[in-house]
């Protein structure tokens, strides 16, 4: 119930040019608006600062700001970015989905396995991988929204289950042989100097941004996240909407799996956690930016870039292998702390 002394002005999450000043903001609140501005763009500024630092810091300067490094960075982070976008969908309505990492790996493994073990064509294998994501999302949504199970526990259970199935399906082996070469070619090709997978992320991000901020459905999702009882009483189909977010998130995670296969050219059995946690960190970091206190697409993308630029810089300046998980974990903690603080400083009282 404690409250800080200001109420930051929020806008409706438009990422583009600075929104016009609110028509009814009669107060000469320039300083307040500045504070709000600073708060909205703090993460972006931090990203620029970190990038600038590693471009000039002698140990990393030589290789950091090169187009080769940028390509590696963007290409490798495409899957994490896409997974982070999947993660925010249920989060907007107030639900966790911890199974998305495992869904992505399951999709990778299934797509690879169908081509390698069964000689199925690429299209069918990809459809099966993405379809698996849809199916898992559907089941998660059913359990969480219809049966009212706790999303945290349910999806954690689902993640464990999928992890086991992945082990069973691959027998612990890496699937490498018999994959359609077109997939790996797509994964390593660039268009206009940028890895092609990045375009997939951009397209999904734009679609999701439109869905969340520019449609009545997206507005409804934020309303559900704010107060599901109130949302039901203004005619929002709470269960159906939340369920939809689980299915969409599962589908995107399925795409993540296919992209991961395209990037690496092989499918290795793992639990998906190594990819999920950076994605969660990015989602929570993103909730401190652009529309502070709310999960949003643009903030999430900035969050991914921030984490990956920092980790890449650290690696290039000779930090050890442990630097990356430590940084990821620390930024997740800071992000969660910050969004909690922001939530309170908006003067929440019931």
């Amino acid at each position, binding site marked *: 119930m404690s409250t800080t002394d200001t109420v930051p002005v929020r806008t409706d999450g*438009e990422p583009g040019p600075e929104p016009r000043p609110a028509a009814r*903001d009669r107060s000469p*609140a320039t300083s307040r608006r500045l504070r709000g501005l600073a708060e909205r763009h703090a993460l972006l500024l931090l990203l620029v600062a970190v990038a600038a630092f590693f471009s000039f810091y002698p140990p990393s300067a030589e290789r950091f700001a090169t187009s080769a490094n940028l390509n590696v960075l963007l290409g490798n982070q495409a899957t994490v970015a896409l997974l982070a976008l999947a993660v925010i969908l249920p989060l907007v309505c107030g639900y966790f989905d911890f199974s998305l990492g495992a869904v992505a790996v399951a999709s990778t493994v299934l797509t690879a396995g169908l081509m390698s073990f069964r000689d199925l064509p690429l299209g069918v294998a990809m459809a099966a991988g993405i379809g698996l994501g849809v199916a898992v999302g559907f089941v998660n949504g059913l359990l969480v929204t219809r049966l009212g199970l706790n999303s945290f526990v349910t999806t954690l259970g689902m993640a464990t289950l999928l992890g086991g199935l992945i082990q069973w399906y691959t027998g612990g082996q890496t699937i490498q042989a018999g994959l359609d070469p077109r997939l790996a070619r797509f994964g390593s090709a660039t268009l206009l100097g940028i890895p092609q997978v990045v375009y997939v992320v951009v397209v999904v991000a734009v679609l999701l941004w439109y869905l969340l901020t520019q*449609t*009545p459905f997206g507005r409804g999702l934020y309303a559900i996240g704010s107060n599901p009882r109130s949302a039901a009483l203004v005619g929002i189909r709470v269960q159906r909407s939340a369920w939809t977010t689980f299915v969409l998130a599962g589908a995107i995670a399925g795409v993540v799996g296919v992209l991961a296969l395209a990037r690496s050219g092989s499918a290795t059995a793992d639990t998906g956690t190594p990819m999920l946690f950076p994605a969660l960190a990015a989602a929570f970091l993103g909730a401190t930016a652009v529309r502070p206190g709310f999960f949003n697409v643009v903030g999430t993308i900035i969050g991914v870039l921030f984490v990956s630029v920092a980790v890449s810089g650290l690696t290039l300046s000779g930090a050890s292998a442990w630097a990356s998980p430590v940084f990821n974990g620390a930024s997740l903690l800071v992000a969660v702390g910050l969004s909690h603080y922001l939530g309170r400083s908006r*003067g929440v009282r019931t």
Partner: protein
Amino acid sequence: MSSALAAAAPSDSEIALRVSGLGKRFGATVALDGADLALRHGTVHALVGGNGCGKSTVIKVLAGVHRADVGRIEVAGRTWDASDYDPRTARAAGLRFVHQDLGLFPQLSIAENVALDAGYPTATGSRVRWGALHRRVAGLLEAYEVEADPRTPVGALRPAQRTLVAICRALQDQEADQRLVLVLDEPTATLPQHESDVLLEAVRRRADKGQTVLIVSHRMPEVLGVCEDFTVFRDGRTVAALVGRRPTEQDLVRHMTGVDPAVSSDRALAPGAIRSGSPAPRAKQLRRGSSPAADPGVVLSVRGLTGGPLRGVDLDVHRGEIVGVAGLVGSGRSSLLRTVFGELPPVSGSVDVRSADGPARPTQDIGSRMDAGVALVPEDRAGEAAFADLAVRDNLTVTVRRRYWRPWGMDTRAEEADAGALVDRYGVRTASTAIPLAALSGGNQQKVVLARWLQRTPSLLLLDEPTQGVDVMSRADIYASVREAAAAGCAVLVASSDLLELCSLCDRVVVLRDGRITADVAGDDLTPDGLTALTQLTADTPPRSAAHQGAIR
């Protein structure tokens, strides 16, 4: 006004609590601007003022929830600077609070909520003595006539019961401790007549024993009946401190608005004032004269409805008619409204809603009822109407969000303009439409919820405690808006525990008892006293008043 202040100053020895020069800003909003307040020992003191004038803020400062920017707080002779005053100081000084938002933990049981405040009774080895706790809480609940088991989670209670639990919690200890200062922020806003009578009686009794009570309320007759001293706030400042004087309702309203009621008579339209001959009945007469001729169509027809507490309800509401629903807590008022809105499925019986273009789809869900032009302002604002962390604008447009959709995105410009117009029209006090709803005062949040539905120009408007927490002046405006909607053909069904409100707003009032309609009153029979008798005295159970007097002792 300064004369009122000067005459006020009581001698220092009788002061139980004094705040002086309190200032508090929330960003650009000045919530308190040098507020003063002095409570005499052993009195019931009323703090009144318009919505958003800073009453709750003063109380939160007293509780240590907010820290004031400047000012001093003095309790029983000890003085603190506002900057080093915290919740523990407040408790140690003998202050007990019921906040406007109650501050209960919905997932915890009643007993745990009560114990969190006063401490759990423990046996050796700090084991909680649940048996003892439950017995003590059961006793408290009985004294305030809450029919609930101490193990029930608070979230499962009705709003009125939740208020009573918060009151039990604040009043649980030390009946005889004379140092206690009880601070109650709109405790009666959601309480039915009988329950608020019980509460006010308990408050009165404690003051007679030497305790001091500060009470905030927008129900003027109530504070006029129970309070000795009055402090009036306007725009975060104390504009009048009336000590040991009996002001009239008009006096108080004049101080609140700073406008002489003679100059602007419609602003002073307090419900109390309406009964003592104001322009309101004339407006009602006018509309009633014209509506039956215009269209006798039945908008809502309920037949043999059962489900929840309802045991066979038959009811017709016509175009342009305002029908009230009176009844005790648990009589099924809210259930009736919610079933009509399609939220609760009826067990048997039928609900037919006729929209402007023929009968509505037979499907019984909220979506199709809304399409048929039905609107519901629910009783529990915080739990079922507010989106506390969303902007005021989003809270206003959430019922019409499809209106603003264009293929290239939401038309935020139009949305902004409409939200601004609603804020102006319903007198919502807010710095901008972009701030979160939670930053608004309770009454202003209620206006946002009302505006959200009235903008849809519904054909059937269901109102559950529509003016809870709304100040006297805005209440008149809300009545005017509802009448306007009715005059345009909207059918209105109002459930309210404020019988005065039902009498001044409605054409006809039905009385619900034990899930059935037991009376239908209109015209000259429609008086608060008549309704009180119909809702309570004829109840099958032995007369409630006798029962509660027994309990209180």
